[in-house]
């Protein structure tokens, strides 16, 4: 198991339209024994990054370190990596056990050790009872587990997973993610997991790297990305239901800086230190983000401020509720616990914490934070 470090890495290729930058100036550290997730929309560069670390694509510029070794020129075999893809690429004519054992036998490892490893791994992945079956008889979920077992049993330095669960039945998806985490916990394998689905990213990774347009936008834990997004893209991409985005004019009422939402009667009051920053920057407009999870139907503390809206849609979802409220032309979402009293067209007072307001520069879309 090893750490992986990318320093100023670029990936270019040439198409009819000229030079295309698939990855731009990437600096990323994957710590030893951690699961790092690369999250982003299709075409953002995450798959290119994975392939460069694997060695199946050349690094155009920059340095890749696996452990302490500069690895740009090592072959995939020399890098000792394991890959798990969307299509599992199992050997159809062999049984599950034979699939898993094949490469170990090739390395001429002692057969007792092989047996023990297979036993341990198949226990965690829940494939102990299908070891003697041919792989073609298995379900998608089981095949993916066999593919993972086969990659793992080689004890790789780093485990690269590219959207491995997209072909698995929906009911089984989260179990496999739990098992992947369990493997990481038990064997200490360093993993890089690539996906475009933010729910998956949150479920599997401790730290998440969000990418867009070939650049790494932000790296952090779910908490950091959720509560301190570095720009509008990250704030909007992570979070279900998506963050409410509102364009605001900065006005001052009685010496207090107020954010008035366009085409609506909503007014938000930012924290004092942010207000100071806005005043210093002398902006007239700003983009406000507030998560549906951070808008409450009941006041929890005195420090909370309030806004009003009329319920347009009430979605009862069993374990929780989703409301869409209207204020003027603006529609915004609230995610909350069950309250059967709420009905459509009712005017509701809602509460928020000032420190949960995210303000973004109207042009650069970067977050505005208090300068130290």
């Amino acid at each position, binding site marked *: 198991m090893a750490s992986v470090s990318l320093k100023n890495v670029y990936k270019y290729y040439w198409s009819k339209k000229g030079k295309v930058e698939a990855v731009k100036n990437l600096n990323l550290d994957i710590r030893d024994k951690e699961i790092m997730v690369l999250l982003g929309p299709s075409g953002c560069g995450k798959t290119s990054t994975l392939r460069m670390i694997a060695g199946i694509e050349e690094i155009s510029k920059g340095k890749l370190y696996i452990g302490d070794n500069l690895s740009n020129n090592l072959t995939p075999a020399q890098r000792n990596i394991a890959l798990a893809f969307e299509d599992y690429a199992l050997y159809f004519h062999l049984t599950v056990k034979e699939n898993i054992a094949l490469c170990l036998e090739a390395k001429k490892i002692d057969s007792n050790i092989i047996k023990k490893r297979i036993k341990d791994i198949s226990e965690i992945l829940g494939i102990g009872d299908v070891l003697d079956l041919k792989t073609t008889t298995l379900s998608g979920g089981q095949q993916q587990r066999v593919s993972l077992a086969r990659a793992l049993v080689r004890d790789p330095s780093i485990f690269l997973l590219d959207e491995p669960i997209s072909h698995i039945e929906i009911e089984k998806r*989260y179990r496999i*993610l*739990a*098992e992947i*985490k*369990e493997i990481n*916990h038990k064997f200490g394998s360093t993993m890089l997991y690539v996906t475009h*689905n*933010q*729910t998956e990213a*949150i*479920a599997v990774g401790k730290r998440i790297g969000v990418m867009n347009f070939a650049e790494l936008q932000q790296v952090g834990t*779910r*908490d950091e990305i*959720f509560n301190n997004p570095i720009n509008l893209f990250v704030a909007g991409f992570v*979070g*279900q*239901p*998506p963050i409410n985005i509102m364009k605001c004019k900065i006005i001052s009422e009685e010496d207090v800086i107020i954010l008035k939402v366009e085409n609506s009667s909503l007014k938000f009051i930012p924290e004092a230190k942010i207000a100071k920053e806005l005043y210093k920057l002398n902006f007239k407009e700003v983009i406000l983000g507030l998560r549906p*999870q951070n808008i409450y139907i009941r006041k929890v503390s005195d420090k909370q401020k309030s806004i009003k809206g009329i319920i*347009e*849609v009430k*979605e*009862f*979802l*069993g*374990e*929780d509720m*989703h409301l*869409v409220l209207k204020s003027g032309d603006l529609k915004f979402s609230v*995610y909350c*616990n069950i309250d*059967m009293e709420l009905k459509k067209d009712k005017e509701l007072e809602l509460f928020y914490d000032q420190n949960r307001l995210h303000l973004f520069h109207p042009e650069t879309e970067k977050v505005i934070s208090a300068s130290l």
Partner: protein
Amino acid sequence: MPKISLKNVTKKFEKIVALNNLSVEINDGEFFIILGPSGAGKTTFLKVIAGLENPENGEIYFDGDLINNIATAKRDVALTFEDYSLYPNFTVFNNIAAPLKSSANKNKYNTKQIREKVDKFTKMLSINHLLDRLPSELSGGQQQRVALGRALIKESKVLLLDEPLAHVDAKIRNQLRTEFHFLREKFRTTTIYTSHDYKEAISLGDRIMFLNKGEIQQIGIPEIIYNFPKNTIVALNVGWPEINLFDCSVNFENSQLYCPKGDFVFNISGNVLKLLKIYGKSEYLVGARPHHISFSDKPSDVYNLKAICGTSEVLDNQSVFYAKIKNLDLTILVNDPDLSLRYKQEVWLSFDDQSLIFFDKETNENIKLKE
């Protein structure tokens, strides 16, 4: 907007019984949801109402008129298929305009009127910029909207939607589900919508019919289906994570429930105790929803059931963790996405006894609904 009635409808495909002697009444203008796992018979139900499949047995009535022998084209229904079934060789415009140009509707609309109607519906569905594209040039979400446009434009009396959100990306699915609320307001046709996702069902439906293997399990409003499932099949399929089910015996003297698999007891009181006394039996299958079980990392009077943690998953807004009390596996849903429980950590659980659901061990039916 007709009332739709089915009486004793049976539909077989060779040996498989897709619909087994179904009788149901759907009210005028109702948004009626058919919920069930795949293979339950939902699509067959819609096709029978549309006339694309003919039942071996039984009658179908629209507002009291028997329609069994009326051809599909004359029934004035609109249907969206699970895989959209757009005409691959027609543009988006022509796909949506198709129902207005058919022989059943010939001469009803001239070219100008057709153009206006297509504009109106495509604007409403935000696809008016795609009119010249072919279906193969659209994303899944866009194809879904075109299929909807084609169904809505007829303004028919009955709207049948077959799993419209099944194949759409998760993020878009949530958005579209919310949008369906807006669309519902605009079109007060009798609508039958099928899904295997209970969230769609309880969010959108006026009433829900739970179908399993061709048989009706329960019909009711969303709150009833969720909080008072008629039997274990409904309880297991409505709600995520799956409801925890385990056997218990009642000790009426101590007002306690004993679970043999986990070898623990806990107190019951109030309405729940009354209910059990009235029903009388001493053995039940108990259902505890994952978000009605709470935990603490320290033992106390309330949190007194020791459990060992298994794996846990962090989701968008919640966490799920698996815990074991002796031999009993439990799933617990917590409203905190930042849960950090370690594998094999000890926790202490507590059941919210008033929210437990009791099923008769022989019939698997919810005892509360027996009143």
